[in-house]
């Protein structure tokens, strides 16, 4: 999951949902326990350490505070955060007062403010008082909640995490103790102990506080897209594996089969082995992402190079017709200066203007191609479909090329074609056909070019076959890419966009375009376009 580009105020994102769920779970449990304390103390099982009434209240307040402090705010932002910080401060106060009681060895009379707790025989010294561990956890959790919005300056610690770290350590120790059945983990002496429910609630609440502000602290670093994969793989094993190993060692040693020395040895060796495995996995992931990055970088460099080449080709191509126009314009001025008006007769001028127009059209076509590229890039190559006859369009284009053909061009012919009607964008289809034909003429080495149209089922098929040098296998896909051409830019003019645009036109019509060729034996460009917008599957 990446939060790099995610604004922190995204509605209903996991960063507000998860802490709310966690805090709600804690609130539900503590509210239930508080209810039992207040109304049905007879239901309580006092055989194991229990969450004290004050603890249930403090945890309830802290979890409600976290719900209120979530982002985005549910009701009114200011009111909600004042309330949230108020509740957090109150739970901090509960923890601070109990801590003071222990520190000063005094009884403020708050222990049994809610309920009398004379039911636990061992706790008679201070009935109803929460453990010093729980009191400390309240202080730290409360501070973390109050500081939840502090964003760390560069290279400074994330304060909520700093205060939550001891809470995690203390409560995790207690939870592991309960899991292993080792009382000394959660019970130091007769009074210093923490109920497993309390420990779990603090763990969950701490986690919720960290997740509630994912744009800072450890959650920020662990969920960045570059490392999220690693976090996902390593986080769970890093917590579970040591816990499991410790449990195994404890079982082995308490069973008596394994002594302390052997236990330590096994524990150490297996920890090392597992750490090595995690290091290996980590290295593998890093290496893979590194090579992906290298690949991306290489592709980026290629793209930039292609664009630079394109810029120089494009300016060259634009300058060529401009040069003709400029010579012509200045020639006419010169003729006027020299008084050679007979050279500027209406007939002569007319043919000159026609020539100018051809050059202007050439510039316009180049610019249109470039505009098409940006249209395609932004996904705006929209079609204006109408009922058109492919044979008719092809015939028009072929006739236009025949009219413009120069002496060196090969013969351009069209195979007989009745009518292949379809629902297409006339302008774009015409563009596709003339791109293919102009390529065939350009690369055809003056040999004949044959155009044919047929319909095959629900598809129309256009084929443009030349007798040119053919296209090598490795070039047959490349030539359809942007700014690419069959042979180096020095040899043939043009922007290197024709086939790319043609393929995009075919794609926009849900069709395809490809080349079949044998080096030395010419090439055949084939376009298959569905007759209708939604072809039967």
């Amino acid at each position, binding site marked *: 999951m990446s939060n790099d580009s995610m604004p922190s105020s995204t509605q209903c994102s996991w960063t507000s949902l998860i802490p709310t769920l966690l805090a709600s779970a804690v609130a539900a449990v503590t509210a239930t326990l508080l209810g039992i304390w207040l109304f049905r103390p007879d239901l309580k099982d006092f055989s194991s350490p229990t969450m004290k009434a004050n603890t249930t209240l403090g945890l309830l307040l802290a979890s409600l505070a976290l719900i209120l402090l979530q982002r985005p705010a549910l009701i009114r932002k200011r009111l909600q955060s004042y309330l949230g910080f108020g509740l957090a401060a109150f739970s901090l106060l509960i923890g601070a007062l109990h801590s003071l009681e222990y520190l000063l060895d005094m009884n403020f009379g708050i222990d049994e403010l809610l309920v009398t707790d004379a039911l636990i025989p061992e706790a008679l010294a201070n009935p109803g008082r929460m453990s010093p561990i729980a009191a400390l956890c309240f202080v730290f959790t409360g501070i973390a909640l109050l500081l939840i919005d502090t964003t760390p300056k560069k290279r400074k610690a994330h304060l909520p995490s700093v205060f939550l770290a001891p809470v995690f350590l203390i409560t995790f120790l207690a939870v592991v103790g309960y899991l292993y059945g080792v009382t000394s983990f959660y019970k130091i002496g007769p009074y210093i102990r923490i109920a497993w429910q309390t420990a779990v609630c603090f763990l969950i609440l701490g986690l919720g506080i960290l997740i509630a502000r994912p744009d800072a602290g450890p959650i920020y670093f662990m969920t960045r897209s570059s490392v999220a994969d690693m976090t996902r793989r390593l986080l769970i094993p890093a917590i579970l594996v040591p816990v499991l190993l410790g449990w195994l060692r404890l079982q082995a040693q308490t069973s008596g089969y394994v002594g302390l020395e052997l236990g330590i040895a096994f524990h150490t060796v297996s920890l090392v082995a597992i750490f090595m495995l995690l290091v290996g996995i980590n290295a593998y992931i890093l290496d893979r992402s590194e090579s992906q990055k290298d690949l991306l970088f290489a592709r980026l460099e290629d793209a930039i190079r292609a664009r630079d080449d394109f810029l120089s080709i494009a300016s060259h191509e634009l300058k060529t017709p401009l040069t003709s126009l400029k010579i012509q314009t200045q020639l006419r001025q010169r003729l006027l200066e020299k008084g*050679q008006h007979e050279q500027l007769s209406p007939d002569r001028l007319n043919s000159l203007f026609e020539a100018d127009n051809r050059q202007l059209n050439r510039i316009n076509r180049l610019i249109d191609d470039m505009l098409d590229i940006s249209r395609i890039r932004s996904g705006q190559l929209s079609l204006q479909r109408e009922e058109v006859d492919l044979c008719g369009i092809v015939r028009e284009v072929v006739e236009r090329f025949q009219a413009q053909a120069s002496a060196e061009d090969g013969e351009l012919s069209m195979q007989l074609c009745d009518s292949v009607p379809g629902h297409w964008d006339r302008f774009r289809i015409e563009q596709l056909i003339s791109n293919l034909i102009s390529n065939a003429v350009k690369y055809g080495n003056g040999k004949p070019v044959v155009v044919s149209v047929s319909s095959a089922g629900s598809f129309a098929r256009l084929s443009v076959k030349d007798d040119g040098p053919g296209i090598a296998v490795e070039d047959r896909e490349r030539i359809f890419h942007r700014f690419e051409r069959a042979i180096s830019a020095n040899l043939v*003019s043009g922007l290197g966009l024709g086939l790319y645009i043609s393929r995009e036109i075919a794609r926009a019509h849900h069709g395809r375009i490809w080349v079949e060729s044998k080096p030395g034996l010419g090439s055949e460009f084939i376009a298959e376009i569905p007759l209708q917008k939604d072809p039967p599957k």
Partner: protein
Amino acid sequence: MKGPLILVVDDDDSIGENIQELLNLEGYESLLAKDGIEALTILRRETDRKFSLILLDLQMPRMNGLEFLAEFASLPPQTSRVPVLVLTAGAAAQPAGVAGLIRKPFEYETFLRLLKRHCA
């Protein structure tokens, strides 16, 4: 009276014809080649005619300007001594061994001045 003879080498029909028209108006004689190969053919064929200048495009199919220059250098001395003016629409630097470089599109007056200088 015939003016100096100039060989125009350019693959673009329109530019080639326009330059020929310009040269004609300014009193030059010209021949047109569409690429390096055609230019070499003309130079080898028309040995009895004295070329005053070659106007050479760089980017052409089949044989480009630079390839032409390499071949041109190995022609008999009376031909290979003909000055070459490179005309380019690209950003290329002036190739070694040529008399000058003109960037397209060019100013009529500048072009004319260079023609006069090199055909003298």
